[in-house]
């Protein structure tokens, strides 16, 4: 297999945007091209677009061709759209990676985009409901917050995790987002604010949840030869893993505080990269809800099972700690425009490992991990390095 690197990255402003779906594509695409002056749209031989529900939110299908045209890309080796609910972006990066590693493409853009906010607010909630099993779960009025609340209640019952510890994830990520001009929320939050915010599904309060957000992000992946010709500071893909345990909530282990699929995805990525969890300098993890970030610490091996609450409370997942988790502000601070999220995580890793992250730079960052999920039983992990091996 050939080595593959990121050579460019850009994100749109995340938030409740007046911009159309196509506007968001353009904003992220332009920012990405601006980051790598040697690449023009015509130079790309591939495009993968991660997007979950443009058919519902923008009344548009045929997405990869639409994006290719909007950005002036003429794919000659790879053109595809990926839909894997909240993990669509990282799943797209894996496709591009595999094509380049196999020698089937040389220079591929992966763009993630979602326009979730609708003129009728209820429509956004209804649309998000398409991600759970329609006949067995949506029929109960089950949406994403209650599913992750099950994990939180179980983690609290088994390990004594507290509401304060859940809130500290919200405080950390809102605080990080205040240094990220692209984030949905940029005002930060105190512990009192998080604990005083509206209860959504116990024990998850508003500031422990990711909001409904519009946004887009793009990265360019290149073969080793092309990467070295384009930049002195490529960011190398070192490992990747994906694992699924089930779609329906009832197919999962009924102990929702354990996510064995995440553990397997992480092990595959660590093994491929030949690194361990304690070598990771920063991690972009899928904090769709604060409990997800806590369980991710454990399954990714940053701490032992059951110790995630103290881990965040002691600042071990913040600047100056063991590993900086979600320096861009995570899904809680940046928002979660489904297909864009995994690509935005990669874009953050790109600037961090090049030392270009400004006010939120993780000192001496050399190894980074991203984690994207599409449910408690479906996970994707990537490992990136400043050095190729």
């Amino acid at each position, binding site marked *: 297999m050939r080595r593959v690197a990121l050579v460019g990255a850009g994100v749109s402003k995340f938030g409740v945007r007046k911009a159309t779906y196509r506007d968001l594509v353009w904003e992220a695409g332009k920012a990405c091209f601006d980051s790598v002056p040697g690449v023009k749209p015509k130079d790309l031989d591939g495009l993968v677009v991660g997007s979950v529900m443009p058919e519902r939110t923008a009344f548009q299908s045929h997405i990869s061709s639409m994006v290719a045209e909007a950005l002036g890309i003429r794919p000659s080796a790879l053109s595809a759209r990926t839909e894997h609910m909240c993990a669509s972006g990282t799943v797209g990066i894996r496709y591009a990676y595999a094509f380049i590693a196999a020698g089937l493409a040389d220079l591929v853009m992966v763009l993630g985009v979602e326009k979730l906010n609708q003129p009728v607010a*209820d429509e956004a*909630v*209804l649309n998000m*409901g398409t991600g759970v099993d329609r*006949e*067995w*779960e949506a*029929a*109960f*009025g*089950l*949406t994403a*917050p*209650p599913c992750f*609340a*099950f*994990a*939180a*209640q*179980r983690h609290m*019952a*088994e390990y004594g995790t507290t509401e304060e510890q859940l809130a500290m994830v919200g405080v950390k990520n809102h605080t990080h987002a205040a240094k990220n001009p692209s984030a949905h929320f940029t005002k930060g939050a105190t512990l009192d604010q998080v604990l005083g915010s*509206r*209860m*959504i*599904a*116990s024990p*998850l309060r508003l500031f422990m949840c990711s909001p409904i957000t519009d946004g887009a992000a793009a990265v360019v992946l290149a073969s080793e030869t092309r990467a070295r010709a384009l930049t002195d500071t490529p960011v190398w893909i070192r490992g990747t893993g994906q694992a699924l345990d089930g779609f*329906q*909530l*009832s*197919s999962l282990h*009924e*102990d*929702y505080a354990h996510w064995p699929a995440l553990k397997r995805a992480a092990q595959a990525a660590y093994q491929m990269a030949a690194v361990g969890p304690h070598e990771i300098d920063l991690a972009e993890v899928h904090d769709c809800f604060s409990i997800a970030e806590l369980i991710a610490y454990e399954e990714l091996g940053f701490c032992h099972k059951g110790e995630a609450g103290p881990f965040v409370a002691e600042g071990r997942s913040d600047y100056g700690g063991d590993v900086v988790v979600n320096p861009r502000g995570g899904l809680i601070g940046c928002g979660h425009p489904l297909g864009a999220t995994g690509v935005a995580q990669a874009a953050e890793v790109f600037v961090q490992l090049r030392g270009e992250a400004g006010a939120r730079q993780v000192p001496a960052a050399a190894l980074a991990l991203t984690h994207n999920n599409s449910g408690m039983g479906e996970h994707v992990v990537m490992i990136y390095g400043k050095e190729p091996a």
Partner: protein
Amino acid sequence: MAEPVITLRHFFERARAGQLTGVRCRKCGELAIPPKELCPACYERAWEPVPLGGEGTIASYTVIRVAPRAFMADAPYAVAAVKLTEGVSILGRIVDIPLERLAVGLPVRFRPIVRNSQTAIGFGPA
């Protein structure tokens, strides 16, 4: 392809009458609920319906305060994943248990929630 032994419609018809029903694999004995296409243990398709006792304990739960529009009038309400005595789990709405008494491990018993023509799975006090 053959019709499943128990369809969604039959599952809810029986639930409406007060009987929770699973399916058991005639090849390997695996028990499943809700009905599935293939046996997840042996990949055969040889289901037979089996009545379930309806007793179990709360594996996890949450009290929903911000609900989708169709359920807004019900909020706050609780949903739980219940591990049945037979070893399988199912989701249900909690009825007739004070919200502050809910806990992981609390024993509960199945009861149908019938509203107009709709039947939903509910769990009340054991």
